[in-house]
């Protein structure tokens, strides 16, 4: 009598557990669909790579292109600028990075123009804008300064400017993303 009751109880517990678990699985997978819809849609993802023609950028000039809805800085560096950045003691920097690693072709520096502190757009791309002590970019929000390799040199930003994945399709055409 006692054992049958216990057996009945176990069966009931098992059913409760299964029912509860299935309910939880059902509801949570249904609810997963909804926030997942907030991820980038297929058309947004299709725009994730951009091709930029860099043939018209003179030595010493920089332009701003658009990549994934944010600015992309493309700078055509002078030999002096390259020499200066390659000479920097990069291991002592806040976010150590070799210039050779960020600029695949030494004369082209390509970085995402978004300050790694809180997302403002640093100044220094257009002629006449302040470029900070290190000759690269200075962020107008909290004064983070970057050098011409996109490395953080002073100010609150923790990281260097992001170097996006890019390839040279031809000598004058790059594909970013």
């Amino acid at each position, binding site marked *: 009598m006692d054992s049958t009751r216990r057996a009945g109880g176990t069966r009931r517990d098992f059913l409760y557990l299964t*029912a509860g678990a299935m*309910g939880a699985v059902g509801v949570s997978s249904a*609810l997963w*669909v*909804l*926030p*997942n*819809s*907030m*991820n980038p*849609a*297929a*058309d*947004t993802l299709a725009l994730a790579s951009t091709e930029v023609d860099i043939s018209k950028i003179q030595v010493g000039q920089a332009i701003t292109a658009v990549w994934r809805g944010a600015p992309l800085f493309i700078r055509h560096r002078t030999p002096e600028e390259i020499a200066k950045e390659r000479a920097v003691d990069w291991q002592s920097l806040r976010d150590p990075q070799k210039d050779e690693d960020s600029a695949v072709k030494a004369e082209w520096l390509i970085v995402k123009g978004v300050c790694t502190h809180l997302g403002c757009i640093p100044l220094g791309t257009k002629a006449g804008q302040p470029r900070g002590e290190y000759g690269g970019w200075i962020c107008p929000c909290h004064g983070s300064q970057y050098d011409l390799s996109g490395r953080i040199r002073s100010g609150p930003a923790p990281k260097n400017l992001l170097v996006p994945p890019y390839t040279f399709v031809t000598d004058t055409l790059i594909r970013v993303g």
Partner: protein
Amino acid sequence: MASAGKKVKFDNPVVQWINDRLPIYSILHDQYGNFPTPRNFNYFWSFGAIAMAMLGIMIVTGVFLAMSYTPHTTLAFESIEHMMRDVNYGWLMRYTHMNGASFFFIAVYIHISRGLFYGSYRQPRELVWIFGVVIMLLMMVTAFMGYTLPWSQMSGWGVTVITSLFSAVPLIGDGLVTWLWGGFAVDNPTLNRFYALHFLLPFVICAVVFVHVWALHVSGSNNPTGVEPKSEKDVIPFNPYYTTKDSFGTVVFMIIFMAVVFFAPLVLADPAHFRQFDPMQTPPHIVPEWYFLPFYAILRAFTIDLNIPFTHIILLPAKLQGVIAMFSSILLLLFLPWLDTSPVRSAVYRPVYKWCLLLLLLAVCALTYAGSKPPEGMPLWFGIVGTFYYFLHFLVIVPVLGKYEKTLTPPASISESVEAGHE
């Protein structure tokens, strides 16, 4: 939902701590855990829970759909196509929402029919019923406005036709319609305000549902016998008995709902839903969604202007008669608790009234059919006869039959009926 009486103790100290400050757990325990509920519910009683589940589904899918939707005449149709094609599982959310409206109405109409059959609207549950009718009205308005948002041919012309009804209002009619539209035709201002209201009203519905349930928990539930519980033997705690029973009912309902969403999502959709709104061209068949068809048929059942005899002075134009009849057909339900004069609550023990209710169901089916067809020939007659019976039922049969019908004797108590059922 005021909790009264002795305090419940909880094992979990966190729960106890919260409950001492905000007694939500006691309320849940009293109103859902331990709530004394008649022991003899059948599955028709699950449709309240099912309707609530549908309301939840409509709100969550709706909020996420809104994130991809643009309420502007030039972009609305396109933003929905973007949702259907590019947004992650956008098609699933949209088809769930689109068909969800129909299934919400299925659940609510069954819920209402249950109330009609078992006399759940009767004293002391008049307010429960009235709030229920208010919920249905709000649902209709919300569904109608949601119908506008895709800005398809069906949307645009549906809005044009239904809002134009208000032009039948004497004197201020035309001004009223212009005010509703925010212009001289259905256009961007109309779309914008309908979107705002379509987003708002579901939360108003939630509030009214809360009051509906609150009032229900004051009087307690009706049951198939229509006999109030008399002793402890008549009732059982809501949990676990009805939580599991309602859950089972809800899952079965979801099977049918999901089968439609995944395998026949367009079964209720007219092709005109997939053509962008063209204010210069009306599609050949303007048909409301199925859940409006009976009311639409009542609207169109009136075709003869009422003149002062032997003159051409129109007292009541046919259009106005239709509008009045359509709105009365719903508002009438508010008075049902006082129209019913029978000493017996449940139609189970009313042999004649049972048949009248069946006729009412047939009349509503006839009206649904009539509403889906152009108002001429046979469908028009279905509409006229259906309308006639609808009003006859509520205004004559319900009050008169209640007085003269020879009813059966309901069981003395719920437990007695349950025991009789077992033998």
